[in-house]
């Protein structure tokens, strides 16, 4: 880990004040200028979200492999360079590429991660993000591993600014209707984004994080904004509820907000954009009331 390397390179015995200052300045310089150089130059990923973050925020020359899912239009958000190999989460696929850093998600490809660690490859698990605190933790973990690149730094700062904004005085009511009639309650990222944007999530009153809701519960709750998850255009039984004719009256009156599918599988990519868009949606709803 680069910060640890920086610490290890520091003096072990007490030094005079001036010497300490020099070491401190050196450490800062290393953090600011040398980190990208010290950071891994052959990075592989075993997680579709980390694939996208790498492809979006990191110099492509440093990436050697991403998962095969990143070639799927459903997940691909950034162009896939030709030299990048697609892996299916097998250790032997990555070994041949001699990565100096393998990024893995919290869940999935666990066997490959374990095997690679046993074989001496540096594998770092980046935590998944299901709420704002975890999202910031994820960005920090990525920053430590990859070096705070310009894009990553920009995203982290933008997000912090948005989060610090004061809450709206009179929140509007909202409810999320996702695939398979799922809705997001307190403690989930979607809920937190709604609350930050000035909405009161009606599903939070249920007390559960992720819960199923029947269509008639949505209609009876009469939310001022109905939030749907977008993305999957192909037919799926899971989306029958969102296609039901009773939802049309929300669509017709402009009281629907579509969350981008990236928020579901890789919130770091779009959370800040979603928050801004939700704030704008709230303003437009307030104007029309």
């Amino acid at each position, binding site marked *: 880990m680069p910060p640890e390397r920086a610490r290890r390179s520091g003096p072990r015995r007490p030094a005079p004040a001036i010497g300490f200052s020099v070491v401190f300045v050196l450490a800062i310089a290393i953090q600011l200028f040398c980190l990208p150089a010290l950071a891994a130059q052959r990075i592989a990923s075993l997680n579709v979200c980390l694939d996208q973050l790498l492809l979006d925020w990191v110099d492509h020359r440093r990436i050697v492999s991403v998962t095969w899912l990143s070639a*799927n239009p459903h997940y691909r958000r950034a162009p896939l360079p030709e030299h990048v190999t697609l892996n299916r989460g097998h250790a032997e696929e990555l070994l041949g590429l001699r990565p100096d850093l393998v990024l893995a998600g919290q869940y999935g490809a666990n066997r490959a991660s374990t095997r690679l660690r046993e074989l001496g490859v540096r594998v770092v698990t980046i935590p998944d993000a299901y709420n704002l605190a975890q999202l910031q933790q994820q960005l920090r973990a990525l920053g430590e591993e990859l070096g705070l690149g310009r894009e990553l730094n920009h995203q982290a700062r933008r997000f912090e600014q948005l989060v610090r904004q004061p809450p709206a005085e009179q929140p509007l009511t909202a409810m999320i209707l996702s695939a398979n*009639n799922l809705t997001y309650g307190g403690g989930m990222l979607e809920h937190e984004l709604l609350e930050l944007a000035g909405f009161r999530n009606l599903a939070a009153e249920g007390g559960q994080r992720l819960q199923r809701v*029947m*269509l008639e519960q949505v*209609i009876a709750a*009469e939310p001022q904004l109905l939030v749907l998850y977008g993305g999957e255009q192909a*037919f799926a039984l899971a989306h029958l509820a969102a*296609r039901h004719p009773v939802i049309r009256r929300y669509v017709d009156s402009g009281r629907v907000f579509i969350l981008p599918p990236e928020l579901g599988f890789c919130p770091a990519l779009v959370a800040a954009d979603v928050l801004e868009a939700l704030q704008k949606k709230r303003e437009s709803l307030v104007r029309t009331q």
Partner: protein
Amino acid sequence: MFEHNKTAIALLAAALPLALLAALLSGPVSIDFTAALREGWRGDSSDAVILWQLRLPRALLAILVGAALGMGGAAMQGLLRNPLAEPALLGVSSGAALAAILLLYYGLAWHSGWWLPLLSIAGAFIAVLSVWLLAGRGASASRLVLAGVAINAFLSALMALALNYAPSMFAMQEIVFWLLGSLANRGWDQLLLALPFILAGAVLLFGCRQYLRALTLGEASAASLGFSGRRYPLGVLLGIAAAVGAAVAVTGTIGFIGLVVPHLVRPLVRQDPARVLWASALCGALLLLLADILVLNFVGAQELRIGAVTAFIGAPFFFWLIVSARRGGLQ
């Protein structure tokens, strides 16, 4: 005895509107029923929308699909003269489900109007005709069943393959939903899509009722009574394919109704295979509606798939059927 049976049928008929009322009152949300009723079809309040746009089409769809499955099961058991026969046995459900999967996941969208039920029914027809061709000319009932099992297994494998390569990332998980069936989130559009085909299937089966009666005397006797040739058995199979295919197209495959219901009502109609068709339709409608009420009141938003509920009812009945057959109680 016959009077008692007539009373039982009348009670079943009277129970249906009561069950419909119970279904309209069932749900996770407590609504002002009379106010919603008074507000009418075009009511804009949430109670009226819940009653007219969500609960009523769902309950009517349960009645329609239950009737199609019950009637299809009775016709299949009459045709094959096998108490364990049901529409799924000859690949009707699998054929319809495969066609629906191919259409929905690879082709046209859900709002493609008549294509969905048409192709589902076409899938059911193709499955039935494949069974018919595989069993060969003048096939015995047992050979038809054997051909049905083979076609069914093949269609199930094709369904798994189709879902495996479907562009939707969630298609594989959805095979479970298809195979267990559900009435959740269905509306008037699905009801109106299925209705004409189920009615057409019922008319076809009605036209073949005398053949089913004659068939109880054996195929040779039926032929001597004027029901020779392929026209009649094919008519029954096409009737089953239309009714059950349309039902599967909108709700997925709901098992056991077609198997259980004809056995329940057969004593009430003095084993008459023609009357058992209508009694099974009535009882199938009631059973599926009651199963849905059970789902709505005791399972709630978690929505145990209705196929699982009917299987819970059907499987013990299946055990009883086997035990009865062992004791010689089943003819």
